[in-house]
């Protein structure tokens, strides 16, 4: 009884041959093609025994006649045996091939993600049957995972819609009260100018400045959220003219400053143009801001020819930052300088990092206090276009 269990368990499995033999539709033919060669074999053996017995008693022509008959039986028996064996083999293999073909259909339907055909020939407890069952289990598992994935995608889509709605609301609804605060503070200043003390008017200035700053924060946060939401289209674009136009705007915003801009003739990258403009606006804008107190301010944009991967650098000779706090550089709302030293929302570098990451690249900053800052970024493996190396001075 004890050794029954493994036997019972084993009995549920069978060999391909066993399956073939058990198969109703083939059994008749199978018996025939096994029986006929077996009978032929018995005939040959019987003929051999008969010959052995007669051999002592016969001589001359009779013995030769007996040998001739035996050879005839031998040849016929072997022929029947060979033909019958081949028939048996053909029957067996054609059965196996038909089932393997069905298995192949199951596998290719599974690969194409289509519903599987009902199990017919390929089912069973033998190797082919178990392979068929395994493929069907794989299909069910894939269907479950597919449903889970669809659920997750659906959840993400609804989250994204919610985020869109939130950003939209922030964009629209948060600005309106700020406009009221700033606008009516200014209206009060204009209407009651004569009645207000200088101190009181400074309060109104502060209200206006606070509202303006909050407006900037909202704009920057929206931009930060937008750079993750917008679709990205990589095309070969030249960073140099974009950088020159940004430099021109920055120069125009503070006409009393002279900054030496070093921007190459051309710097073609394979990236999203609108997003790269935001990257350069932030990096060049930062460089411009932090060189405000540098007598001979110099800001460069160039490709680092020595780097293994295509690497772009924006560096300046401005205030720099403390490398001990460099880890905080790319966090949202992280500022390494006080608001009174250098204005800013602390969102710009976080935005840069998100854009660079979306391109599959990396960004890092290095500096020594008072020794300028250098920001290096790459744009991922899809950034593979050649670029001009020549440097020209602008401004």
């Amino acid at each position, binding site marked *: 009884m004890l050794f029954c269990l493994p036997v019972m368990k084993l009995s549920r499995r069978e060999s391909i041959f066993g399956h073939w033999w058990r198969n109703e539709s083939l059994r008749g033919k199978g018996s025939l093609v096994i029986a006929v060669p077996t009978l032929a074999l018995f005939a040959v053996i019987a003929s051999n025994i008969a010959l052995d017995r007669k051999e002592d008693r016969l001589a001359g022509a009779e013995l030769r006649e007996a040998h001739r008959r035996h050879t005839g039986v031998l040849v016929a028996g072997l022929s029947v045996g060979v033909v019958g064996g081949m028939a048996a083999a053909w029957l067996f293999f054609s059965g196996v091939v038909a089932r393997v073909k069905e298995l192949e259909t199951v596998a290719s339907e599974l690969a194409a993600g289509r519903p599987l055909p009902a199990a017919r020939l390929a089912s069973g407890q033998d190797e082919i049957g178990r392979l068929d069952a395994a493929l069907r289990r794989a299909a069910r598992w894939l269907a479950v995972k597919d449903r889970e994935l669809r659920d997750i995608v659906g959840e993400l889509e609804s989250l994204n819609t919610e985020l869109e709605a939130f950003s939209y609301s922030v*964009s629209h609804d948060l*600005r309106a009260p*700020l406009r009221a605060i700033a606008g009516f503070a200014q209206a009060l200043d204009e209407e009651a100018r004569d009645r207000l003390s200088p101190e009181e008017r400074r309060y109104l200035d502060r209200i206006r400045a606070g509202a303006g700053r909050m407006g900037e924060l909202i704009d920057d946060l929206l931009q930060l959220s937008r750079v993750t939401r917008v679709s990205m289209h990589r095309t070969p674009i030249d960073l140099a003219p974009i950088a020159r136009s940004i430099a021109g705007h920055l120069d125009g915003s503070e006409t009393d400053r002279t900054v030496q801009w070093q921007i190459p003739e051309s710097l073609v990258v394979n990236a999203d143009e609108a997003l790269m403009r935001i990257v350069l606006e932030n990096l060049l804008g930062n460089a411009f801001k932090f060189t405000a107190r540098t007598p001979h301010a110099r800001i460069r944009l160039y490709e680092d020819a020595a780097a293994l991967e295509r690497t772009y650098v924006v560096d300046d000779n401005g205030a720099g930052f403390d490398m001990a706090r460099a880890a905080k550089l790319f966090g949202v709302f992280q500022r390494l300088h006080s608001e009174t030293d250098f204005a800013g929302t602390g969102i710009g570098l976080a935005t840069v990092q998100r854009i660079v990451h979306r391109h599959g690249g990396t960004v890092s900053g290095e500096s020594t206090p008072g020794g300028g800052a250098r920001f290096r970024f790459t744009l991922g493996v899809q950034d593979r276009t050649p670029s001009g190396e020549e440097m020209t001075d602008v401004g």
Partner: protein
Amino acid sequence: MSGDGTILLVEDNQDDEALTLRAFGRNKIRNPIVCVRDGQEALDWLFGEGDHAGRNLAERPAVVLLDLKLPRVDGLEVLRRVRANPATRLTPIVILTSSREDRDRLEGYSLGANSYIQKPVDFEQFVESIRQLGLYWLVLNEPPPAI
């Protein structure tokens, strides 16, 4: 500095309405300004229906300043219906809104807005926006002929 064309201001926020009127005043724009509070009222005024039934439709607005987020009928729907109506399809419409979202700009222009201006938070900038807007739409721009 301006002609005598009527300005239709479609704005639900009373603060924004007051500030816009103040900005017009600061820029000495003396054109008649009709203020409506939602999209339906804007359509009623433009088509002479509802509360504005029997209005003299010969008084056509020189420009419509249209907010997007409006009660009852939103700004984009107003734009759609104004463009669909032969009597108003050429009316200059300037979207004046808080939003700078891409989809609003895209939809606004797709539906035939003539211009899209984001209201700045800073009042001085807002006054300047209104000055340029008034100069362009009320003085420089030649409106379409009556049809």
